[in-house]
């Protein structure tokens, strides 16, 4: 029996742990390259201050890394405990990148992070620099694999359904690895992490300058963060645009929901800058539109329409009907002998198997999907629409913050080239108070990506509610509360350690030359 409470609680638990885990990951990604840049300057210029800078920011990197690893492990366990059907149905695809992510994260990163901290006195300058670059590389490679897995959930390629094992199996690992959605997500996500790392360094350095402490180190740190952050913040927006274009190609419902575009937008499609999506009335009130922009983002053209929610629901309705054919054929095939399958049923299944997932949506509304009524088909078709207001606002706040980061780093870069940080306390205050903003932006980014994929666990293949394990709601309540308490404790420890280290500063920790 599929228990709706278990579905909701399991989703809530995964969302909680994933959003919490991603408080740490992007900072690790960003700081790893900043450490590599600072140490490279040290090795090339031979000035001790750059070594001290690397060591000091390395301490903050280490605290964050330790907490991030601890929070990531629980997510992988949940695939087994809470998402057993999901794990079986797509495990052949999902398992390999997840295992490689674990190997990269634990073996490569953990090895080099040990050498990074304990190798300063035991390795030569160049050897230690190589360690730091490999640490950054390992950190980013582990992100690559998890985003390959996630990219496949957004745009499943290189796989097909196996009748005998009742699951999706890999037909081309290269297609899974080089999935364009996965690659676009990877570069967009890691670039967002680089922006976070840069703002972290910029903000804390600004705080030191405002306090008149560690001036030489803070100015150099700000200069590195400003230049790296400017390049990365521009990259995030450009790569996010590429991600948006691929969504326009492959996840049209997500784009229509982000835009609250209920009716198909005729070419050249306008972008809704602002408005109030009304789910009950299925329209957007007081919409302010920018001509042509949506067409350029979603189709890279001014002569193609962008499909609206009504038309996409109609398309889903057609796919459900085709999926019902595949579903009933599969029932026939599974009830007959495997060695001599019913030829007509096999042909019917093969012709419609691409839409099997759409028929599975009907299981929310009827016990017999193959004999669903028009009302049930209609309800299943409308269930393919994600939460429009959440996506609409999350996307706009995320993009607004992304544009603000470009302006922040451009100003910082200008001031760095003019050596004017200490003459502009307003900017130092702005930089310091910007510290929480990248976290808000990246969390909203994940909400857009994952909430926008609903009702699918794997787009068009497996509905989320069919992926959960058969377990008691009480068990999930127990683990959910346990995670919330444990993670809150970890957050408190992390905040305490980071704050204490920042307050003590490079001078207090003996990193001042």
């Amino acid at each position, binding site marked *: *029996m*599929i*228990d*709706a409470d278990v*579905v909701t609680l399991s989703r809530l638990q995964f969302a909680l742990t994933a959003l919490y885990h991603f408080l740490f990951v992007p900072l690790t990604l960003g700081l790893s390259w900043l450490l590599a840049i600072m140490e490279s300057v040290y090795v090339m210029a031979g000035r001790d201050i750059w070594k001290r800078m690397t060591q000091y920011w390395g301490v903050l990197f280490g605290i964050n890394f330790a907490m991030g690893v601890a929070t990531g492990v629980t997510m992988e366990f949940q695939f087994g405990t809470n998402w*057993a*059907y999901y*794990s*079986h*149905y797509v495990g052949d695809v999902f398992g390999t990148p997840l295992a490689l992510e674990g190997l990269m994260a634990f073996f490569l990163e953990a090895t080099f992070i040990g050498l990074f901290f304990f190798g300063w006195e*035991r390795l030569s300058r160049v050897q230690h620099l190589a360690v730091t670059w490999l640490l950054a590389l390992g950190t980013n490679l582990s992100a690559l694999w998890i985003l390959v897995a996630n990219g496949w959930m957004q745009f499943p390629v290189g796989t097909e359904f196996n009748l*005998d*094992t*009742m*699951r999706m199996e890999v037909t081309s690992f290269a297609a899974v690895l080089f999935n364009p959605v996965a690659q676009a997500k990877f570069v967009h996500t890691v670039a967002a992490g680089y922006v976070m790392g840069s703002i972290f360094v910029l903000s804390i350095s600004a705080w030191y300058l405002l306090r008149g402490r560690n001036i030489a180190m803070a100015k150099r740190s700000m200069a590195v963060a400003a230049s790296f952050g400017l390049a990365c913040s521009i990259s995030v927006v450009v790569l996010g645009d590429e991600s948006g274009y691929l969504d326009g190609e492959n996840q049209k419902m997500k784009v229509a929901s982000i835009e609250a575009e209920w009716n198909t937008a005729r070419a050249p499609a306008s972008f809704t800058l602002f408005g109030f999506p009304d789910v009950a009335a299925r329209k957007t009130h007081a919409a302010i539109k920018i001509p042509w922009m949506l067409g350029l983002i979603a189709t890279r053209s001014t002569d193609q329409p962008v499909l609206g929610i009504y038309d996409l629901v109609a398309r889903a309705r057609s796919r459900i009907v085709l999926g019902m054919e595949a*579903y009933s054929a*599969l*029932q026939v095939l*599974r009830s007959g002998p495997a060695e001599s399958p019913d030829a007509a049923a096999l042909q019917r299944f093969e012709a419609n198997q691409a839409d099997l997932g759409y028929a*599975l949506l009907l*299981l*929310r*509304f*009827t*016990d*017999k*999907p193959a004999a669903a009524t028009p*009302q*049930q088909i209609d*309800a299943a078709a409308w*269930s393919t629409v994600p939460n429009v207001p959440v996506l609409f606002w999350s996307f706009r706040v995320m993009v607004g913050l992304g544009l603000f980061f470009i302006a922040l780093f451009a100003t910082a870069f200008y001031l760095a080239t003019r050596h004017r940080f200490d003459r502009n306390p307003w900017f130092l205050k702005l930089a310091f108070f910007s510290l929480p903003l990248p976290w808000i932006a990246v969390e909203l980014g994940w909400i857009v990506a994952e909430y926008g994929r609903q009702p699918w666990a794997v787009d068009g293949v497996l509905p989320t*509610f*069919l992926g959960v*394990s*058969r*377990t008691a709601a009480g*068990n999930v309540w127990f683990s959910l509360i346990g995670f919330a308490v444990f993670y809150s404790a970890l957050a408190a420890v992390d905040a305490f350690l980071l704050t204490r280290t920042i307050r003590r500063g490079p001078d207090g920790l003996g990193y001042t030359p």
Partner: protein
Amino acid sequence: MNANHHPRAVSWFTSRAGRRYNMQLAWVVLAKLVALTILYYAFIAPQPRTDITPTAMQRHLLDATATSGESHDRR
């Protein structure tokens, strides 16, 4: 004896401190393995596991009565 003989470079890991470090590391790894084993047998092993054989997947996805949902969306 050759007066120009250079003493062979000694790895830190074979020094007294290094050997103590190695021993501590081995104990930590061992303690973690024991703790994880105890946790597994105490809390995880006794839990019922979801059946994910192909037949179970067939029941889950295709056999209507078995999958009859308790979903509140069911109409």
